[in-house]
């Protein structure tokens, strides 16, 4: 039942599209997989797309916030994209603020933002 989230490499960036509801184990496995992949590929940027996700609870938000800080420690910048209106509303009502996190409306804008940040 434990599924791995695919991590794709595009030049010096990693692309992840979360396609199904995350359970705790999958989220924690993803955290580890992403850090190993950054190490393996020397990626400088990461885009995580949430277009298909219809809710994020405090656990997933914590794992996400942590993996962004961990990636930063390893020298990679992370942009999250595709947060749906319902997800943005519930996260704030829940009291979760991901304020230091770079965001963009969709994958395309996320990649553009990352390219600018990385100075390419």
């Amino acid at each position, binding site marked *: *039942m434990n599924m791995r989230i695919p991590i794709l490499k595009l030049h010096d960036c990693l692309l992840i599209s979360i396609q199904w*509801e995350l*359970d*705790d*184990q999958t989220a924690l496995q993803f955290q580890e997989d992403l850090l190993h992949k950054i190490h393996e590929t020397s990626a400088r940027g990461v885009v995580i797309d949430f277009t298909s996700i*219809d*809710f*994020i*609870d*405090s*656990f997933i*938000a*914590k794992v996400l916030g942590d993996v962004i800080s961990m990636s930063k420690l390893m020298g990679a910048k992370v942009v999250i994209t595709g947060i*749906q*209106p*319902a*997800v943005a*509303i*519930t996260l704030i*009502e*829940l*009291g*979760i603020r991901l304020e230091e996190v770079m965001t963009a409306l969709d994958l395309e804008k996320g990649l553009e933002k990352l390219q600018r940040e990385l100075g390419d």
Partner: protein
Amino acid sequence: MMDSSVKIINEWDIVAARQLGRNVAKELGFGTVDQARITTAISELARNIYLYAGQGEITIEKVENGAKKGMTIVSRDEGPGIPDLRKVMEDGFSTSGGLGAGLPGVKRLMDEFSIESTPGEGTLIQSVKWLR
């Protein structure tokens, strides 16, 4: 009215509980934002059971009050209980080291919220979301 319950024993039960909640919310005609609120609230309540009580139960009920229709989420456990209810209802208070936005978040996501807890006996949380 049909009630449905999910026993919360392990992490997978948290997923099962929120999937049940989301399906009932859809059936009742809640919009996508309220569906997300309900799913998130259930996830938080189920996780609290898993983390603090070890096991318990989430029950989803459809409710009608005159012309109003909605759904109730009941979270019941026989865990250690909460000694200071006022404190757990304060934003930012969490005993599990930052895991879980806690009960104030759930209260904001739902329309009605009540909690009873007896140390040594357990906790009962009832919350309602009304269809607008």
